[in-house]
């Protein structure tokens, strides 16, 4: 595996009028993991989307222009980044094998893609159209896509949702193997997730307003 790692500074997130968090700094090296905890709506998914580069990490330019708190958030990754969230990104009408093959062709790791299907026990579901898969099977398919991507860094948003006990154990194994191979993992889960030696961020205790910084 190539080098992996994350450094992120002064992350800021606002949804509508609500400030979710600001001033979050993160650093991860190869093999390390970060566990995001906190109740629903506290900003775990938003933080993951910011780390994925899908949301801006800083206050919007308008606020900065008029001199209000000017965050200069930045997210820098070493290596490629993969995201697994509640959205499957597999064509619903396609048989699973074809839906996964689309990503396998884009990612260019056919052997990894086959491994992923094997590891997640999807071999006997390959002819089933994606829309007929159960919630747990869909989650397994998403993990097969994730593994096929061969990225060094994993962002997992509620990876255990819909999985049975056996599936959850399997996912914990996958995450463990990925870290042992030198990859990083950022994970948000409201279900208990076995993650040894991981850093933990509870967004409840994060400064939510500028006043929170005051001594």
């Amino acid at each position, binding site marked *: 595996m190539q080098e992996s790692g994350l450094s992120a500074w002064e992350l800021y997130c606002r949804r509508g009028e609500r400030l979710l968090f600001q001033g979050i700094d993160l650093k991860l090296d190869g093999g390390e993991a970060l566990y995001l905890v906190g109740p629903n709506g506290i900003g775990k998914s938003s933080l993951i*989307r910011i780390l*994925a*580069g*899908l*949301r*801006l990490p800083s206050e919007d330019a308008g606020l900065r222009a008029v001199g209000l708190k000017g965050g200069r958030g930045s997210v820098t990754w070493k290596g*490629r*980044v*993969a*995201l697994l*969230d509640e*959205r*499957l*990104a*597999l*064509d*619903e*009408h396609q048989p699973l094998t074809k839906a996964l093959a*689309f*990503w396998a*062709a*884009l*990612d260019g790791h056919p052997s990894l893609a086959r491994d992923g299907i094997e590891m997640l026990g999807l071999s006997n579901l390959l002819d089933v159209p994606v829309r007929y898969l159960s919630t747990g099977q869909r989650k397994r398919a998403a993990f097969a*896509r994730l593994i096929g*991507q061969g*990225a060094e860094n994993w962002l997992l948003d509620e990876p255990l949702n819909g999985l049975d006990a056996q599936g959850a154990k399997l996912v914990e194994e996958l995450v463990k193997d990925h870290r042992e191979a030198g990859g990083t993992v950022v994970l948000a889960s409201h279900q208990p997730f076995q993650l040894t030696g991981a850093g933990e961020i509870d967004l409840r205790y994060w400064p939510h307003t500028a006043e929170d910084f005051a001594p």
Partner: protein
Amino acid sequence: MSRTLARLLMRDLALFLPGGRRGGTLLPILFFLSVAMLYPFAVGPDAPVLARTGGGILWIAALLAAILPLDRLVAPDLEQGFFDQWALRGIAEEAVIAVRIVAHWLSFGPPLMLAAVPASALVGIDGEALLTVELGLLAGTPGLAAIGVTIAALTASLRAGASLTGLLLIPLAVPLLVFGAGALSTGGTGGLALAAAFSLVLAALAPFAGGTAIRAAREA
């Protein structure tokens, strides 16, 4: 990069071409033919009137038909997370939108030009007018496809997006209609050339507008 774009194009075509799952093609074509069929019933079998106005009606029918597939062009991929996964792989939204315009045009432009042949018989225009309509559609449909994909990207994250698309498309498509259909009455190729030029400008701008729209939708 070009292999990636080819993969995207293949997926888009599989979705949009006839038999594809988003059934974008047949509905607009049937709508186009229905208008051409209804028009003589509505205005009566007056051959000179039909011959004079038939070409224009085909243009209006083509423009309205272009509205039908819009809600399926971008929104499903945004909802299902495809755009997020492409972004993580470093595939720019602009590239995805540009590919989508090509795929949408291929599934919409040529079939419409084919359907214009039976439609011209239904509205009773002669061969010369048909040729002008066909050339006009060839010049104008790439622009219509570019407008369509842009609007689809702009409205993809809105709950009432589908009902807005038609209202947004019509004003933007007016220049195409004026130049393309205008060539029927003025003759010559000036109008067609202007329609083609407008199409090219739209096709060049649309990927940037559409890509920005997708990124803005994520911030919402």
